């Protein structure tokens, strides 16, 4: 029934359906999240005997005064702001073009989708060569425009840019596919009506495509923001297990990784995770609020 009211019985039934997934989620998602929240307040902790002798805010205090953490937050924000808009715009543009052509469209779709199914490490190896200061394709290409050779991966000025370019490229495949699905779902009749109403190609794009595609754009950008905040493996692979020259690609998750695995400061690692969690939450809530007003379902 469309207008059925929830009853005790129907709610119980729903819970039963959800139970298998709930158990998995609670064990592997909810519990670790709670645990790391609690862990971020451990100030004296004996790892070998799992004894906590003191709780407090010391870990957070440390983070706020640690210059490395400041760098990590700054780099993460630069990365998110660099990657997400570029990903959305470029994948939308490519999807629009792919949607137009019929010639070899299947092949092109596959080609663009490949980065998504390829391992990050392999991708990073390829880009490692592209970025090579002496023999790299990118510098070779830029030399046609009279640009002097840039040491992409060795210079602190260019390392973040190199990381962003590679990440955008890697994100394209999946997002193009999402946009293609969205474009296919827009009924041709709205374009016909718009033409009759005097809308040229640009106005059709802004008045029909953009609003009717907004649910997908929203999905792509929320997904992109969350994914970009958590960036780690791209850095690890591209800079051979370092956070870039002079920490120029040190992000929050990389910081967390260092604290946890190399310095064994579990409390501080957990605290940085909590900070990241709230940053993502804040941005996502903002996106949700924005979508209420601008996304048309």
């Amino acid at each position, binding site marked *: 029934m469309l207008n059925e009211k929830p009853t005790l019985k129907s709610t119980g039934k729903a819970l039963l359906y959800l139970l298998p997934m709930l158990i998995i989620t609670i064990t592997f998602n909810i519990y670790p999240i709670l645990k790391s929240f609690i862990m971020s307040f451990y100030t004296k902790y004996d790892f070998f005997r799992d004894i906590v002798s003191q709780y407090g805010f010391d870990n957070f205090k440390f983070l706020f005064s640690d210059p490395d953490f400041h760098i990590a937050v700054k780099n993460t924000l630069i990365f998110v702001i660099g990657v997400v808009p570029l990903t959305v715009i470029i994948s939308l543009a490519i999807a629009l073009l792919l949607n137009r052509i019929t010639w070899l469209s299947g092949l092109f779709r596959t080609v663009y989708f490949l980065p998504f199914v390829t391992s990050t490490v392999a991708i990073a190896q390829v880009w490692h060569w592209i970025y090579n200061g002496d023999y790299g394709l990118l510098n070779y290409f830029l030399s046609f425009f009279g640009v002097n050779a840039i040491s992409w991966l060795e210079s602190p000025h260019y390392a973040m840019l190199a990381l962003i370019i590679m990440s955008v490229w890697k994100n394209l495949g999946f997002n193009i596919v999402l946009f293609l699905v969205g474009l296919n779902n827009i009924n041709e009749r709205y374009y*016909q*009506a718009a*033409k*009759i109403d*005097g*809308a040229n190609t640009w106005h059709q794009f802004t*008045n*029909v495509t953009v*609003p*009717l595609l907004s649910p997908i754009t929203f999905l792509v950008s929320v997904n992109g923001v969350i994914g970009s905040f958590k960036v780690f493996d791209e850095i690890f692979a591209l800079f051979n297990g370092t956070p870039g020259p002079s920490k120029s690609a040190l992000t929050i998750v990389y910081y967390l990784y260092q604290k946890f695995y190399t310095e064994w400061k579990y409390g501080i690692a957990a605290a940085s995770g909590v900070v990241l969690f709230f940053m993502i939450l804040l941005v996502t809530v903002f996106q949700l609020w924005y979508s209420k007003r601008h996304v048309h379902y």
Partner: protein
Amino acid sequence: MEVTFKDVSLSYDGSREILHRLNFTIPEGTLVSILGPSGCGKSTTLMMISGLLAPTSGHIFFGDEDVTKQDALQRKVGMVFQNYALYPHLKVLDNIMFPLKMAKVPKAERREKAIKLAKLVHVDDQLDKKPGSLSGGQQQRVAIARALAKEPSLLLLDEPLSNLDARLRIEMRQEIRRIQQETGVTTIFVTHDQDEALHISDHIMVLNSGKIQQFSSAETLYDNPSNLFIAQFIGEPVINTIDIEDFDDELTDHVDAEILKRAKKVGIRPEALQDHDTGADTLATITTKVKTFEKFGREKNALLDFHGKRLLTTEIEAELAEGQELPLYLQKSGFYLFDQEGTRIFGGDQDVE
């Protein structure tokens, strides 16, 4: 604006032709209905006039100008789509204002005009709703308002009233007629409802299986159907159709022998079967047997048996008993003969196309 089709054909997939060499002229300032059964190509014809669809061959003229190569943007017609095609993300008011926005009309003026149009089609209490939460009929009316908003010189309506109830339908069709006569906008109105077409239009184009069957006034369609399809399609109740072989020699003295030889089908309108002699208007007499006789108020219908075939008449004056013998007088008007191809070869006014 006058619209002319010259040998226009269309095929969607390049193999199956949907419309075959259409030739017609819609005079400026008239309201023309395109009438025909489902799937005969009415919407397709409209799409070609609007410029959304290019003909496979042939030429389309607006006035003297050949617009075959122009797209919908350049042709600037107003159109109500069969499926309304309202923008789902825009409120009713914004939907109506959209063509004005594209025409860069100032905002205040846009609003004022849109509200006026909304009042005209009775949706002024729905302005803040999205199309998704309107009834089919309301959506249809919003679509009409949107098409009228830009004051086109050519208005195309694809079954714009199909979702309205009987009363609103009559009201809206009078409204469309009024707007058309007031503004003088050339209007092409697609419908499969003959009653609607007969009431609203100056001329009716009847389309069947991708060909124009007849293009004339409503009266001519009824009195001088050019073929069997038109005769059967127009008129309520439907014309009686029987084979020429069903007659013995009732027609021999009244119809030219040459014509009788070519004739294949006989069409007799129900009102052309009178139960009394009308003198000069009578063409021939036949003898029938009453099968059923019904009275609804002033209306008297009789279903008759004629050489084993059924005939319906609406023109009985006397009271009849079932099973009784009844001589009937075939009237000259409303009696037609059609040849093998279905072309009318006798009856009506042979000179009228």
